[in-house]
Structures are given as C-alpha cells and as structure tokens.
C-alpha cells in the first residue's frame, strides 16, 4: 500500500514536537562532543601524550549526558506518537473499515517517525556544529582558551546523529503500537465490547516492569559500590536509572 497516501490521510500532527525533541537531543550530543574535544585539547595543552587519557575521562562524562538526552527524547517521542494516535483513532478506524490493514497504518506512523528523526537529527547536528564554532570563536576572542588548532569536524560527530535517528524511529514504532488496538468498529460509532487489552490486566507487562524495576535498583546499588573503586561504576548507575523509568511508565496501569 502507498504509505504516502495513508500518511496524507492520517495527517502529520505531532511532527513538530518530535522534530524539536530529536533536534535538541542531536544538537546537545554534538555540542557535548565538541566541548569534550576542545576541553581535552586545552587540558592536555601542548603535551600530546596526555591527550588520550584526558579524552577518555571526558568521554565518559559526555557519553553519560548523551545517553540521558537520547533516553529522554525517546520517551517524549514515544508518548507524543501515542497521544497523536489517540487523537486520530477515528480516522485510523475509518481507514481500517475501508480496508487498510493495521500493519499498514502502523508502518505509516513509524515511517513518519524515521523521517522526522532524520530531519531533526541532521538539523540539530548542523545547529550544534555552528554553536560550537561560534563558541570557540568567542572563547578565542575573550582569550579564555589558547589557539591550539581545534578539530571541530570529526567523524565521531556522526554518532549522536545516528543514535538520535535510530532512537526516534524506534520510539515512533513503540508508540505506534496503539494503532493495532484500533478496531474498524470504532468508525461506525457502535457500542462495543471491551477489547481484550482493556479487559485483561496484562500480567506479563506487570511482571516485566517489576523485574525491570528490581534490576534497576540492583544496578544503581552496584553502581554506588563499584564507584568506590573505579569511576566506571557510574555506567552501572546509568543502566540502573534507565531501566527504572520504563518500569514506572509501563507498570502505571496496575
């Protein structure tokens, strides 16, 4: 089926929010990497042997913040998509009624997510690089940092862009799960029996979110403990923190 036709029919509401969030996450990631690179160059000064050690330490910090940014943007996008779908239930039901499959309807939403992710990430990256150039210029001008020949265009900058595209696409796919629950009967305005999803209490999800929550707490505790010995303990804490939030979101309907 032509995805464009469905997309045109179901509209593009919610694109703005997702685009902005993807662009922000991407810009944030790019600026963070640029800052890391500049800081590493400044701290190690002219002693190039120091450069890689400083870089790796700063990279951990940058990685942490980028993960958090991407994570938050993915959650926002998932919820935006789910909300938009809730508002378009009638149109989706009508398309289903006339003979569009649930899969086609969902793919149209996910494809839109991929496009928005791509546009947002590239836009954000461009803004991020511009900001970095301007920032470094200003820092020069005010003699805040010495002129050490900074490399502001690195292949590494593609990393946050790729991550944001993938996470937005993924988030749109997860958020579009709701499309599958729309029944064509919703378009005829008839009284309906409760759908299976509404009437069951979704025990699998409940168990899953409890497990996720417990794992999250364990990782957080582990992060604190390992953190006494090595700075990489913070990574454990990050995993713990990330797994607790979806546990809260998914389990909210207990």
């Amino acid at each position, binding site marked *: 089926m032509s995805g464009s036709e469905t997309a*045109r*029919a179901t509209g593009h509401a919610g694109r703005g929010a997702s685009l902005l969030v993807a662009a922000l996450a991407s810009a944030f990631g790019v600026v963070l990497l640029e800052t890391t690179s500049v800081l590493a160059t400044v701290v190690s000064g002219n002693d190039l042997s120091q450069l890689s050690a400083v870089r790796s330490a700063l990279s951990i910090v940058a990685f942490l913040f980028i993960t958090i940014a991407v994570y938050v943007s993915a959650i926002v996008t998932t919820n935006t998509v789910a909300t938009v779908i809730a508002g378009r239930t009638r149109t989706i039901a009508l398309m289903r009624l006339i003979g569009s499959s649930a899969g086609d309807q969902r793919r149209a939403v996910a494809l839109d997510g991929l496009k928005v992710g791509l546009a947002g990430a590239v836009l954000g990256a461009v803004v991020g690089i511009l900001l970095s150039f301007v920032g470094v210029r200003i820092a020069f001008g005010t003699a805040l940092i010495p002129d050490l020949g900074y490399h502001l265009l690195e292949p590494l900058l593609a990393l946050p862009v790729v991550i944001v595209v993938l996470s937005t696409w993924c988030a749109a796919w997860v958020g579009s799960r709701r499309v599958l629950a729309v029944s064509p009967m919703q378009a*005829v305005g008839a009284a309906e029996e409760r759908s299976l999803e509404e009437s069951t209490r979704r025990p699998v999800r409940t168990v899953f979110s409890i497990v996720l929550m417990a794992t999250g707490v364990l990782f957080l505790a582990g992060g604190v403990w390992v953190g006494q010995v090595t700075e990489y303990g913070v990574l454990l804490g990050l995993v713990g923190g990330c797994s607790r939030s979806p546990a809260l979101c998914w389990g909210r309907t207990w």
Partner: protein
Amino acid sequence: MEITSAELGLAARVTNLCKNYGSATTSVAALDDVSIGIGRGQFTAIMGPSGSGKSTLMHIMAGLDEASSGRVWLGETEITGLGDSELTVLRRRRIGFIFQSFNLVPTLDVRGNITLPFALDGRRPDAAEKDWIDQLTDSLGLGDRLMHRPHELSGGQQQRVAIARALATRPELVFADEPTGNLDSRSGREVLTLLKAASTGYGQSIAMVTHDPIAASFADRILFLADGRVVEDRERSTAEEISGIMLGMEQRA
C-alpha cells in the same frame, strides 16, 4: 452437498445467526437465530426499531463483528471465523460502505476520497476503472467538486461522495447504515434515488439498514427485525404500509 449462494442468486447470506453480548449471567441476545439472504442485484432494506439488532446484523455480515454462533457468507466465501487480515482485504475489495455520518477522510479532496479504496489496495485505478469513476462522478453531480475537501460540501454532496467511494470498486455488496439519517428530506430522497438507480441501473446489490419507512419504501425488499428476530419479509411496499407494519410491531411488543 451444500447449497451455494450463487444457486440461490444471493450476494450474501447468514444462517442460524446468534449474537450475545455480556457474560453468561447478564447475557443479552442481539440476534436470535437469524437466517436471511440478500438477493444479488437487489436493493434490500433491513428495518426495525432501535435495539432490534439490525446494526449488529449488518456489522456481522460486513465482517466487522463476530457472531456468537451461526455462519456468514459473502458470495461464495464463508467469512465465519476469517482472520483480521483476510477480512480487511475482503472489505477493501468486495464490500462498499455508506454511513449516516458520511465518514469521509477530511484531509483528502473528493477525488482522493473516491479513489481511496484503490490507494489502500496499493494500486491506481486502471483505464476501465477510471472511466467508471468518471461516469459515477458525473451521474452523482460531483464533476466540478473533485478538488474540494469534504468540509466545503453540503451534507447531501458529502453523502454522494461516499456513494461514489462505495461504488468505485464495483463491490459485490454495498452496506448502507442509515444513509439519510443526517440529511434533510430533500437530499435524503436524492440519495435514496441514487441508491435505487445504482441497483436497477448497474445491478448493484445493496443492503440498507434504516428505521425510516420512507427510506425503506425505495427498496425492492424489506426485512423487519424485532428483538433480534426476523418478523416480516415483504416485497416492495409503500411508506404507509411499512409504517403500518412498524406500528403493529410496536403494539405487539
């Protein structure tokens, strides 16, 4: 050997259809052992007071709802127990829908709405289908409205677009659910005349659910439902006769 729908000259039929809502203790029977056939090329009206089960019957025949027991055929295909994806393709290619609330896609123009069933099928109308669509839009008086959006049209015009959409794929059976319910009496009569013309002119099979005796008087055959059962089966009747039957049903109830 089972009797086929074609031998009976039927576009669709149901046998021993029952539909219960609610759980065992609070069960309500919306349909109670209904067996009917919709004649090919005929304009059939399904009448009954609200709550008589006429909409439920239509939904089950169109593959939108599942029966509690009984069997359903569309043409030669038994659709009882078909999965969602098969029913989706069936609705797309073999059934047309006309609703009380028009149900046009607001973001598509008239042409987009009429060709939507083809777009959902992942193809463009071929030359013969294009001719047919042109013929339809002309006879429905939509020729100069093709670039308009639904909100720019009157109720009667919107319903005519919906009729064009339902007829565009030349489906085996068109279901019309209270097609005049949202229209003033003049545009309502216009829409009914068009449905009647589609049936006599192109041999289109139509099943119309309604509780309006005037709408039913346009049909070739009228089935009366009350409390989930078929209580009368009449050939073409006048609005007065239909009203009389309806009143009689009310008084007996």
